[in-house]
């Protein structure tokens, strides 16, 4: 157990099993799927409220997201992986003219498109992942379209970089 806690990485096979158990645990304990799109929206509203000096109450689905942040911090500390990093490594290798301008825009635009897509689709990837365990057909459609498209764009971009 201690070995897993302190190891830098656990096998994807074990991670897959653990993720399945976590989704089922959340359904048993909370009687609801975790990571819904409303939690992100509410958390943003409450962050603004805190900025304005008000102390809003936190619901369980917002607390789940705070838990993810804490869990990631604990894991990074336990595995000695915690490192403050201002820019992604692949952006840094392209020089300051890239990571100070284009890189930031790409991250912002990417994040915007991901969440817009999920709001339109109906919920976040995490919620869909949980729903996929119930074999909801339409979630499979989302995953297939997203994955094929991302593979096509990702391959095209990597080929372009290799040509350069």
């Amino acid at each position, binding site marked *: 157990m201690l070995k897993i806690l302190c190891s830098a990485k656990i096998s994807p096979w074990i991670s897959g099993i653990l993720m399945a158990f976590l989704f089922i645990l959340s359904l048993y304990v909370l009687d609801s799927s975790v990571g819904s799109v409303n939690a992100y929206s509410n958390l943003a509203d409450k962050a603004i409220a805190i900025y304005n000096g008000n102390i809003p109450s936190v619901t*369980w689905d917002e607390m789940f997201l705070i838990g993810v942040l804490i869990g*990631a911090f604990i*894991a990074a500390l336990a595995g000695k992986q915690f490192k403050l990093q201002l820019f992604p490594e692949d952006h840094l290798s392209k020089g300051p003219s890239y990571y100070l301008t284009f890189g930031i825009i790409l991250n912002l635009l*990417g994040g915007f498109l991901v*969440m817009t897509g999920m709001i339109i689709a*109906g919920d976040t990837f995490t919620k869909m992942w949980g729903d996929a365990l119930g074999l*909801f057909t339409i979630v499979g459609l989302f995953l297939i379209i997203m994955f094929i498209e991302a593979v096509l764009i990702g391959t095209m971009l990597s080929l372009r970089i290799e040509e350069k």
Partner: protein
Amino acid sequence: MHPLQISGNVKILAALFIGILFGFILVKSALSNRKTFMDQFTFKDNSFAIIFFISITVGVPLCYFFTKYGIINLHPSNYRFWPIVAGAILTGIGLVLCGHIPITAIASFGTGKLYSLIVLLGMLLAFPVTKVTYPILNDYVFGKPDPVNLNALAQNSLFFQGKTAMLYFIPAICLVLALFLRLIQRSSGSKSKKEEH
């Protein structure tokens, strides 16, 4: 048997604990790392797909039996055909650009990757923008009738229509896909090592 009937502060604490476990596994499985997603789309590192397929392989039968005996209840969102298609297209483009889904962006920020805050900011900007553009989205996406009644199929799920063969077929397919992805990853890895020598 039925799901735990907790509420109030106990539920908030339970959600915090489950969130901590999620965050921990996301980091330990390297899903919080943007490179894991980026490499998945070029098949350099298939960890993400293997994790996903194995979770389906293990989770689907468990989910079925726990639902059958009333231990858990499924609460699917109201997914519809055209919004799912449009949403998947936008999400796919965004994922290639930033390499994060919302939960991994939070986990990544927790590991000290400050650039994930920009990704999260972009994600939060999506809420007011979709609110403003809702009338347009409603005309072209939400208002469009579904070409097939996938909604009913999704809401009822294949489990509850007596097609329990899917219960074993889909996990088996996912396991085969995970093994295949592991094999091609190993062969491409050894190939690149040979080239280095």
